[in-house]
């Protein structure tokens, strides 16, 4: 059995279920954080699946997820700014944990994949994912304070 796909399944099951539970219950701040962490749960799973299926072409999916996931969170952070104004949701512990998970997955794949153009692409995706995750958390924690939702 392919270990990569097993790891992706476990990551998906755990991360996906936690994100779904987080986004359906709790305060608006907690829901937006759950939406932000969905990107950090799904993108490493896509990378693992790409390695597990032996298809380097699937890495483009993870690249697009790493690029557009944080943009989706910025949309919610900006347009829900007045709802989140009083709450200033910030879960920096979760953010750094998700960033650590993403870094671990990218390093493991780089080691497995060996040096070359594919490894540079993986590092670019990892950088985009972790940078986007941190910036989205920063935006949620009060990045759009003076924006009157406009």
């Amino acid at each position: 059995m392919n270990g990569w796909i097993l790891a992706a399944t476990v990551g998906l099951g755990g991360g996906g279920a936690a994100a779904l539970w987080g986004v359906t219950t709790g305060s608006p701040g907690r829901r937006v954080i759950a939406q932000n962490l969905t990107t950090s749960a799904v993108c490493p799973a896509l990378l693992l699946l790409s390695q597990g299926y032996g298809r380097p072409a699937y890495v483009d999916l993870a690249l697009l997820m790493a690029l557009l996931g944080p943009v989706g969170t910025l949309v919610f952070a900006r347009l829900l700014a007045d709802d989140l104004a009083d709450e200033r949701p910030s879960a920096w512990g979760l953010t750094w944990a998700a960033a650590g998970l993403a870094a671990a997955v990218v390093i493991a794949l780089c080691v497995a994949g060996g040096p070359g153009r594919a490894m540079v692409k993986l590092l670019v995706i990892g950088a985009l994912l972790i940078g986007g995750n941190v910036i989205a958390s920063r935006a949620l924690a009060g990045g759009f304070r003076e924006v009157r939702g406009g």
Partner: protein
Amino acid sequence: MSDAVITVSLLLVAGCATAAVVQRDPARQALVLSVLGAVLAVLFTVLQAPDAGLSQLAVGSALTPLLIMLCVRKVRRRGRTKDGAR
């Protein structure tokens, strides 16, 4: 074992769809639709359809939430000015 990942993805999609329908507030529904988009992209990858997965990621992660949230903001702002103006 690749069936396990298909089953997990299918169950996640079913859960996200139920959550999206049960959630009556449009702003919060947009959040759940964004998560549904991401999980659908994973299901398409697992069903070996990367093109459809890319399409779902491009549309579902940023475009649809932005459209819905702008619509919610316009309707909510109209409600506020209407009460204010009356």
